[in-house]
C-alpha cells in the first residue's frame, strides 16, 4: 500500500510538477472501500398548504446501498427524476438523510459534528452539471479556485499564488486567466475551472454530477480526457452521475443503474454492458442511439414514463412498464441479490422462489 502510494506520488510529480505533498498526508485506514453507502434513504416531505402538516413524501432515494473502491470510478445512471443527483448530494451531506449510513473512509458522515464535517469537506468535492450557473460571476477565476484553499488552509499563504497556478496548469488553464471573470470563458473552459476548484482542495473523492451533459461533443471529449488522467495522477475516486450511457461506459469501472429511487442493478462495467440482467437496464441500453446507419438494434421501447416518486407503484417499482411483469412483481418488492459473482440485481426473474 505504502509503496503504491509512493509510486503514484512519483508519477504525479514527474507528470505535473509538484502539488502532491497533500496526497501523502492523508493515508486513512487501510480499507479497500473509500465510500460505503448502506440503505440510504432520502425523502422530501410534501407539506399541506395551510397547517404545514406532512401529507406525504417524495421518495427520491429509497434504500440504496453500494461501495466504491479507492481510485475507481462508479457510474450512476438512470432517467431524470430517478434520484441519482439526490443520492450524490446526500452522500456529501449537502442534504440531510432520512435514514441509512454513509461511511466515508471509516467515518460516518452523518455522525460528525459541524467542526469535524468542516475538516472532512475538502476531501469530498462536487463538480456540477451546468458550468454557467455554478461559477460566481463576480469573482475572478483565481479567487473562485482559491477561495476554499485559503479557507481550509490547504497551503501556506506565501505559496498560495504559486499553488493556484499549478492547479490551473494541471487542468489546462493558462495561469494568466487568474484575473479574468467567468463570463469571458466558453463552456468547456468553465468546466475546467469547476474541476480546478474541486481539485485545489486535494480531495480523495469527487462527485461528478453530469459534468459533460451541457457541453458539445468535441468539448465533452476534452473534459473526459482531463478527468481520467487526473484520477490516475492524484489517486482520485469518482462517483460519475450521468444519463449518457456511452460516456459512463468509457469512464467507469463499475456501474449502478437507478430507477425511481432504487438501485436495480450493479456490476462491473464490462459485465453490465455485456449482459444486462434487469429488464429496465436492458431497455435503457437498447435505447442508446448507435452512430452507424447499418446497425438497427432491436429497440425495447418502454411504454409510458417514470411514475411519480411521491406515489410509487406497489411491489417492484418497475412493474408498470416492464415487459416481463409477473403476478408476484405487483405485490412483493424484489430482493437485492447477487445473481452472479459481483453482479447484483433486484428482480423477481432471478429469485429462486419463482
Amino acid at each position: 500500500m505504502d509503496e503504491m502510494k509512493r509510486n503514484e506520488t512519483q508519477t504525479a510529480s514527474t507528470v505535473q510538477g509538484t502539488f502532491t505533498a497533500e496526497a501523502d498526508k492523508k493515508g486513512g485506514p487501510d480499507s479497500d472501500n473509500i465510500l460505503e453507502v448502506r440503505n440510504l434513504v432520502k425523502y422530501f416531505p410534501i407539506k399541506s398548504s395551510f397547517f404545514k402538516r406532512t401529507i406525504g413524501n417524495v421518495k427520491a432515494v429509497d434504500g440504496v446501498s453500494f461501495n466504491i473502491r479507492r481510485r475507481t470510478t462508479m457510474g450512476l445512471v438512470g432517467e431524470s427524476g430517478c434520484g441519482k443527483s439526490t443520492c450524490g448530494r446526500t452522500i456529501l451531506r449537502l442534504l440531510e438523510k432520512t435514514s441509512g449510513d454513509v461511511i466515508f473512509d471509516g467515518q460516518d458522515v452523518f455522525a460528525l459534528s459541524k467542526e469535524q464535517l468542516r475538516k472532512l469537506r475538502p476531501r469530498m468535492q462536487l463538480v456540477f452539471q451546468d458550468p454557467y450557473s455554478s461559477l460566481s460571476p463576480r469573482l475572478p477565476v483565481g479567487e473562485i479556485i482559491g477561495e476554499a484553499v485559503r479557507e481550509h488552509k490547504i497551503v501556506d499563504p506565501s505559496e498560495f499564488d504559486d499553488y493556484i497556478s499549478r492547479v490551473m496548469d494541471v487542468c489546462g488553464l493558462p495561469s494568466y486567466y487568474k484575473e479574468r471573470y467567468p463570463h469571458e470563458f466558453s463552456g468547456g473552459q468553465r468546466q475546467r475551472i469547476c474541476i480546478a476548484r474541486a481539485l485545489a482542495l486535494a480531495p480523495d473523492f469527487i462527485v461528478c454530477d453530469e459534468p459533460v451533459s451541457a457541453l458539445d461533443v468535441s468539448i465533452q471529449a476534452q473534459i473526459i480526457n482531463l478527468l481520467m488522467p487526473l484520477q490516475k495522477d492524484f489517486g482520485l475516486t469518482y462517483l460519475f452521475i450521468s444519463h449518457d450511457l456511452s460516456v459512463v461506459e468509457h469512464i467507469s469501472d463499475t456501474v449502478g443503474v437507478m430507477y425511481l429511487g432504487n438501485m436495480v442493478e450493479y456490476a462491473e462495467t464490462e459485465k453490465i454492458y455485456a449482459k444486462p440482467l434487469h429488464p429496465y437496464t436492458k431497455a435503457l441500453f437498447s435505447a442508446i442511439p448507435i452512430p452507424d446507419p447499418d446497425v438497427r438494434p432491436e429497440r425495447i421501447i418502454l411504454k409510458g414514463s417514470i411514475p411519480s416518486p411521491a406515489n410509487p407503484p406497489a411491489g417492484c417499482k418497475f412493474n408498470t412498464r416492464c415487459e416481463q411483469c409477473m403476478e408476484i412483481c405487483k405485490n412483493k418488492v424484489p430482493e437485492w441479490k447477487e445473481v452472479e459473482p459481483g453482479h447484483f440485481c433486484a428482480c423477481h426473474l432471478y429469485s429462486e422462489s419463482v
Partner: protein
Amino acid sequence: MAENKKSSYISGKESRRITRFNRRVTKKLEKERADANKDPKLYTTAMKDPDNIVEFDNVCTYFFSDVGVVRAVDGVNFNVPKHSTVGIVGESGCGKSVTSLSLMQLLARPAGQTVGGEIRFNRGDGTAYNIVNTPNAIMEKIRGDQISMIFQEPMTALNPVFRIGEQINEVIELHNPGMSEADVKARTLEMLDMVGIANKEGVYSMYPHELSGGMRQRICIAIALACSPTLIIADEPTTALDVTIQAQILDLLQNLKDKLNSSIMLITHDLGVVAGMADYVVVMYAGRVVEKGTADEIFHHPCHPYTIGLMRSKPVVGQKVDELYNIPGSVPNPVAMPDYCYFRDRCEMHCDRCSGKYPAEVRLSDTHVVSCYRYYDEGEVLGQPKSVNVEDLL
C-alpha cells in the same frame, strides 16, 4: 493578455459607426419584407429539381450585432429531397439552428437577416417560393401549414396558461378558416390519438404542467403536424429528454413522417440519433457546410477532418478505447473569421495549401460533397461558398 484585450476592443467612434450602419441596413431589409403587396414574381421561382422539397442555395444569414457582423450562416448549399430525412449535425454555434430559422423566417429580427442566396420551397404545382424574399404576410400562411417546427424544449414551447386542446385548435383554426368548431375538435383529438396519447379526451382539457416531458413533446409534435405539413423541422427534438423517452419520440416521428408523406429536417448534435433516422447528413462547422452526403457515406467514409474528429470524439457503447480523441482548440471568433479554411487551426491534417483561400466544394460522388483541399485530386471541384459583402446591401 494585453494583445488579446486589444483585439476585442472597439473605440466609441467605431461602435457608433457600426450601430448606424446596422440600423440603415436592417431598416431597408425590414421595409422590403413588410411590403404585403409585393409583386408575386419577386418571390416566385422554380425548383432546380422538382423532387426536392427545399433547396438551400448559397444562403447567407447574418446578424448585425453591436460588435460587428456575425456570419452565422455563410453560403450554405444543400437540398432536402421529398419524403426523406435530412440530418444537420454540428456543434453549438455552427449555424444549424439559424439555417432552419432562416427557412421559417423566425430569426431574431431586425438584427438577424437573410441577406443573400435563395431558399426555394416547393409549392407542389411546379412553382416555388423563394423564402428569402417572401413578405411576412405570405410567410404567416406557410408557417405551421406547409412547414412546421418542433422545438428543443417542450417545457417552454407550450403556453402554460392555455389548455392543450386550445393550443392545438388554434393552429387548425388559423389555417382552415372555414372549419366548424366540432370539426376542429375532432381533428385535434385525431392528432392526439396519432401521437400516441391514450387518454386523449382527458389530455384535451389539461394544462401543460400536468404532463411529463415526453408527453409535452408529443403535444408539440401534434401541433406541428396538425395541418399535415410537407416539411417538418425538428430542432433538437430529443435533447431535453431521457434515452428511453428519446427512443419513443424518434420512433413516433419516423412513423408519422411515413404516414403523412412529409420530409424531416432533423437538427441535432447527437450522431447516434442522426444515424438512426436520417437518409442524408449535412455536417456544418462555423456557419458553413463542410461535408454532406448520404448517411452511409458520412458514417462509413467520413472525409472532412472535422467529421472524422466528431465521430472519434464520441464514445460508442461496446467499443473500448483507452483515450478519446479530442479536437484541439475551439471554434474561431464569429465576428472575425479567418480567410483560410475555418477548421485549419484545429486540424491535425492541414497542409500548406490550407493557408490559401477557403476550400471549394469537391464532389466525390453524386451525393457526397466535401470542402477540403485534401480531396482536390479525387473529385470534381465545384465553386466556393460566396459571402455577401455587407457594404453592398445599401
